[in-house]
């Protein structure tokens, strides 16, 4: 009996890579793709690593494929922006063994700054794009991608979306098929193929275009492009998770389900279109398939019916279909109205988050803050409202340098997390030192890649596969780059943060402040959790402590006799004892850790 498991799309991709004999895999963590490498790292037969960024990860995978081993690079959609340079040259050179580039798009931006549709990259770089519709296909298409990569001598993109990555479905498990070589393989040198100087590149370009023609021909009979004929009044071309929504909403329609969404099988589409009365495309985000079909001269509808922005779901597809007259209105399930005016509950900085002390201080000093991507981005939310830009990974330092060169009335700083600093912050800090600005960079070193769920990075001293390794020192690194003023502070000590910041803001030239304290959710920090308490006699309900934005300190039902304001209350289930609220309290109404310990004793 075959073994079945309820796998997320990400677990399935990891399993697929293992079964298909991938030997080297590299990635940078990014929602919704992170769990792919976390799961792959459990298979000893595959070398898996966190690279400092997606461009490095893709170069690593390309190198492995040049060296004759099947390889995989994994990233979220915007990671391919970082890796785009490598993506394009890999398409030009081809490889000696299969290379699959997995990228996970994020329609609806659950955890991203945009919802770019990476199928454009496939077309842009002439790389075939495969799209699974569930976990089983996610697993199977990894192997298919590697076979196609080897057959046509070019990388293949496997495009996931959040709902594929983070939905679980049953998957049949297989064995790893690849044989491990007894001896190291000889590296095959081929300068005309792998040295992309203009002369060689000019010869490669027509080869790449010929490859596209061949893949297109192959797509006509590719088994993952399949026709499911139903009623002929409506034909639906679709792929990815949109296929599943369309099957729910139009159970009797005819389907052309595309497992390869670029390049498209023109003859297959023409044939399908001729067999149905009305042809529509159901696809998330951009009208990629729709426009390709229209370029073939075939009448088709898509984004005139379904939305361009956000993700699809069964309700959206059904509602749009009803509006377009494709379904009678009574097919929509009855339901009550949404509850109005509910308080929102966005994700927030956790109790004890070390970033809080930094933002409390930048607020006190009224600093303009160029922000970056990580948990600390959440510092933009009220009540802190302390972070003023967030664009892409590593943007904060370059922006702050530009602000400095432009000149503004206020003082300003850049904040960037430890992992993000390694990702793309380093060249920007080098620029600050090289072109000398008064930029103050706060590196928020919480000893992990926190936002994606605690991954290792070059500063933690451990690898993805849990091997001990060299841990980079930010202080030495900053000095080596030419930064003269380097301070290290504990963000739980508000006075120390303020003194360091003031010193840097007053000094001439670039400065770096390293705010070092483990993420409050790491085991080493959890071991030190201790709940503080409010002295109800001292607290007068002034509300200063609420402005630090900690979920653990809330208004109690008790009102202060004089002010009439609610007394503060600390939830012992949530409080970790960081003492940030205690330090902002003007009436010393919050017990410190020492006092709590003494009381207990």
């Amino acid at each position: 009996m075959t073994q079945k498991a309820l796998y997320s799309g990400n677990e399935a991709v990891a399993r697929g890579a293992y079964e298909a004999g991938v030997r080297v895999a590299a990635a940078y963590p990014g929602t919704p793709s992170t769990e792919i490498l976390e799961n792959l790292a459990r298979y000893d037969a595959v070398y898996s690593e966190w690279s400092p960024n997606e461009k490095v990860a893709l170069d690593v995978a390309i190198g492995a494929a040049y060296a004759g081993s099947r390889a995989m690079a994994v990233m979220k959609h915007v990671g391919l922006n970082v890796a785009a340079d490598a993506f394009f040259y890999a398409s030009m050179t081809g490889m000696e063994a299969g290379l699959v580039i997995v990228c996970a798009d994020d329609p609806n931006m659950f955890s991203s700054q945009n919802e770019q549709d990476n199928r454009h990259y496939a077309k842009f770089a002439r790389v075939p794009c495969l799209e699974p519709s569930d976990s089983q296909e996610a697993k199977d298409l990894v192997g298919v991608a590697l076979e196609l990569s080897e057959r046509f001598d070019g990388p293949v993109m496997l495009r996931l979306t959040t709902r594929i990555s983070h939905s679980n479905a049953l998957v049949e498990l297989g064995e790893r098929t690849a044989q491990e070589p007894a001896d190291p393989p000889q590296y095959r040198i081929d300068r005309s193929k792998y040295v992309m100087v203009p002369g060689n590149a000019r010869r490669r370009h027509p080869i790449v275009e010929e490859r596209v023609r061949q893949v297109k021909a192959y797509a006509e009979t590719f088994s993952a492009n399949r026709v499911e004929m139903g009623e002929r009044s409506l034909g639906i071309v679709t792929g990815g998770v949109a296929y599943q929504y369309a099957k729910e909403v139009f159970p009797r329609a005819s389907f052309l389900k595309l497992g390869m969404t670029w390049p498209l099988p023109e003859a297959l589409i023409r044939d399908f279109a001729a067999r149905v009365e009305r042809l529509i495309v159901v696809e998330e985000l951009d009208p990629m398939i729709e426009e390709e079909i229209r370029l073939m001269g075939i009448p088709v509808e898509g984004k005139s019916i379904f939305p361009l922005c956000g993700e699809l779901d069964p309700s959206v597809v059904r509602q749009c279909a009803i509006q377009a007259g494709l379904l009678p209105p009574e097919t929509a399930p009855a339901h009550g109205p949404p509850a109005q005016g509910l308080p929102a509950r966005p994700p927030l900085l956790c109790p004890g988050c070390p970033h809080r002390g930094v933002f409390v201080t930048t607020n006190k000093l009224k600093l303009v803050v160029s922000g970056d991507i990580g948990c600390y981005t959440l510092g933009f939310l009220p009540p802190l409202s302390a972070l003023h830009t967030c664009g892409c990974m590593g943007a904060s330092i370059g922006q702050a340098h530009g602000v400095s060169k432009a000149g503004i009335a206020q003082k300003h700083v850049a904040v960037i997390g430890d992992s993000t600093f390694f990702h793309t912050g380093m060249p920007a800090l080098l620029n600050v030192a090289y072109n000398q600005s008064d930029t103050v960079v706060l590196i928020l070193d919480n000893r992990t890649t926190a936002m994606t769920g605690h991954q290792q990075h070059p500063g933690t001293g451990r690898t993805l596969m849990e091997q001990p390794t060299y841990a980079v020192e930010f202080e030495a690194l900053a000095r080596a780059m030419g930064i003269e003023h380097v301070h290290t502070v504990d963000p739980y000590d508000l006075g120390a943060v303020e003194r360091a910041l003031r010193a840097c803001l007053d000094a001439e030239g670039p400065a770096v402040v390293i705010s070092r304290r483990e993420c409050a959710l790491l085991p080493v920090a959890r071991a030190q959790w201790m709940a503080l308490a409010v002295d109800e006699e001292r607290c007068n309900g002034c509300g200063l402590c609420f402005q630090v934005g900690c979920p653990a300190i809330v208004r109690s039902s008790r009102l202060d006799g004089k002010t009439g304001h609610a007394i503060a209350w600390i939830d012992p289930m949530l409080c970790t004892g960081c003492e940030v609220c205690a330090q902002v309290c003007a009436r010393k109404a919050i017990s410190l850790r020492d006092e709590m310990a003494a009381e207990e004793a």
Partner: protein
Amino acid sequence: MNTGTRDRNFVLAGVGGQGTLLVSNVLAHVGVRAGYDVKKAEVHGMAQRGGSVSSHIRWGAKIHSPLIGLGEADYLVAFEVLEALRYVELLRPGGTVIVGEMRIPPLSVSSGGDVYPDDETVRRILGQATEDLSFVPSVRLAKDAGNVRAHNIVLLGALSVHLDQVPLEVWLEVIGEWVPKRYLEVNVNAFRMGREAY
């Protein structure tokens, strides 16, 4: 073992850190064990801790969409009172709502001007959606079972009463696979208390 023919759609709602995802894993795997095709959808990442979280779980003969549409949920299980209200639109008329009696005020209530809905508002909104509405003293029962954090499993126990096609042993077996050994007894107690309270 699968005796039901129609699909069962479950929406679980809670606050990040409450154990919503553990329950969704157990519920999905119980469905598999009971012979259903199963899909489960949830969003993680972006420091969901403290934020609103939801899971969609579907059992059926053949499941396509991992997401449940408006009016398609048979069961709405909320681990926090306010979160029950947030997803009420997904419930089919007359569907089952099980609410754990835990209230966690969002930051906009504790440090801003938002108001947490009072009991009357909660009952009115949920009562408009269905008559099959239960409030379970999940915190008290979990404390009785031995650990307040097992409040999520209390609610799973309450839900299991509605799914009598699945034998008790299957629930306990799957819980045993997902809960750390040292907390197993507490969680089994919590599950049984949830079943009996219902």
